[in-house]
């Protein structure tokens, strides 16, 4: 959401040539992406994080924003963005590897209450805050999430909501004309 012009560094380019790990999953059949891809299984190539780190990070992101029916592919987008941040900055790599090591490999398989407890203990730190912010920026800004939450997004390309339900609420009375305005199509 906030583009960082310094992202295109030599460091980043070097990292993008290297694959350090893979995160895999299977698209839910309801995912809007399912129709677009040849296979429903997906794999995210990582350029800074190891596969084990990505699993831990995924568990952290799912604890920060737990939506039980939301496709893991949406969460994987967050992991991809965090991995890109790590690939672009030695400082971020150090921050992530330190924090992920102290969460430990068992974090991903802990019950949610325990994961919450662990994250609460590091909540004020830079690692948690940057993961939380990236989760909000990426998880809620993609078509998989929009479909899940029922958000219809932009409508200019469809002529707006004027004829597509902007005033279709029926469980409350209509607003008197004096406090409303004429429908253009009326």
């Amino acid at each position, binding site marked *: 959401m906030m583009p960082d012009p310094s992202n295109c560094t030599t460091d980043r380019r070097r990292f993008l040539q290297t694959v350090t790990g893979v995160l895999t999953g299977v698209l839910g059949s309801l995912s809007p992406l399912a129709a677009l891809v040849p296979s429903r299984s997906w794999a995210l190539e990582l350029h800074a994080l190891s596969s084990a780190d990505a699993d831990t990070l995924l568990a952290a992101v799912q604890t920060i924003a737990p939506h039980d029916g939301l496709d893991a592919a949406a969460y994987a987008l967050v992991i991809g963005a965090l991995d890109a941040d790590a690939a672009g900055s030695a400082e971020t790599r150090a921050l992530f590897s330190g924090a992920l090591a102290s969460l430990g490999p068992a974090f991903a398989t802990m019950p949610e209450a325990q994961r919450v407890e662990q994250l609460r203990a590091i909540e004020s730190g830079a690692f948690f805050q940057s993961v939380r912010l990236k989760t909000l920026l990426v998880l809620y800004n993609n078509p998989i999430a929009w479909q899940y939450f029922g958000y219809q*997004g932009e409508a200019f390309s469809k002529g707006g909501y004027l004829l597509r339900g902007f005033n279709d609420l029926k469980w409350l009375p209509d607003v008197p004309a004096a406090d409303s305005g004429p429908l253009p199509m009326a």
Partner: protein
Amino acid sequence: MQTPKPRFDLDDDSVVVIVGSGAGGGTMAHELTRRGLTVVLLEAGRRESAASFSQNPGEAFGQLTWLEPRSQSGTWDPVRTSPTLPAWHCRTVGGTTVHWTAATPRLRPYEIRARSTYGDIAGSSLADWPLEYAELKRWYIAAERRLGVTRRDGNPGLPASNNFKVMYFGARKLGYKRVHTNYLAINSRARDGRPLCIQQGFCVQGCKADAKWSTLNTEIPRAEATGRLDLRTECLATRVEHGASGRATAVVYRDASGNEQRQKARFVCVAGNAIETPRLLLLSESARFPRGLANGSDQLGRNYCHHLNGFVWGIFDQPVYSWRGAVLAGVVEDENVNDPRRGFVGGYHLELCTLDLPTLPLVGLPYGWGRDFASIIDNYRNIAGLLVNGEDLPRPDNRITLSSSVKDPHGLPVAHVNCEEHPNDIALRRHAQTQGQRLYEAAGAKRVVFSSTPPATHQMGTARMSVDPARGVTNPYGRTHEVPNLFISDGSVFSSAGAANPTLTIVALVLRQADYISRELAAGRL
């Protein structure tokens, strides 16, 4: 036929230089060029268009927003929740009129007599505006005609959306009387060469339908059509220079390639908004003006007001689909009165509001994470929303200074924003949020959620108008007391904040200022 774009010489000292192309600067560019003056308009951002506006909310935010980090201090929420982004405004041709939600209420008479009406409130620096309401009203009418405001001048209101139906039902149950689909600079029917609103809901991403007024879709193209506007994009003003006589002589800026340029000027209008305007004048300090240009009063940068904002979300059992429709098309006006029995001075509006995903969790909800936070977003379809917009009290130390810790890419200090909330601010916000909660509960909400304070979208007060040069930066027309050919043409000149969204007042004051400039030029006094 396209008018050829003029390119005025850097040494041409007959041109007017305007800094900033938003509500103030863009309107001033049109007003001066149509009167025959030649104008160089410096804009720090790029030029987008209805065709280029991104329809991805996250991308649109990056495309339009002033993202350069700033530093902050003080007690108000954004210091913690949004440490590098105290304000959410634009950096693009058209300025914040590109992403604004187009609410255009007028200030009320009591609000421009804040000091006289509210009395001497400890810890505030309240002032009366140095003009009569009858005069302001005349310019409001002119501004409303310019912008095509709904419910004014014979323009119909926008039709009620789902989100407004919820607000209306709850508000009427509470006994509120002045509740309607708001005064908006959005076409409710085709007008002035622009189409009507198709209720697409993406006001904040730049209106792709062009139903919403912006200086990008009206004032600037009209100024260009005169053949007298030289708009220079990606040009950041860094200094206003003055000569031995104390008059402004040139504006120094960095061009799109980062090179320093110096445009000579006949007179200068600064319209960077109430954060960037004082920053520029503070950066323009000199031996003659050691505290910053035109800052002998030491009032420059002080009295920063940003309005008391906060979202109230009602979560219902049934769908609202609040994102469908013009974002701010609804208002409760009844609390825009001064009634100290409520426990505070000044008033507020409750304005209809909705936020897209991801903006709702980013700025619209209280800080949080985990199951409870996620459950609010799980209810996204069933959320109705409103925004409190209340008057904040000016304080001498709520101010813009030059940052000692953060520099921009040119190595210049960025603006530092210090904000301490006044007890009156806290009492007003609490009252407004409680009324919002009661409103939604009256409509049947199962849960009501308040946001923390979002980054400021209204910037006011940092170069206030005053009759007495010791008490403000500009005279009652926005002309600086100390530099006779330097004007402030944005919300910086407000003497107090009132509770009205500021753009209409900015445009009204700029139309009035342009008229004053004409008269001063004709009389040989400029």
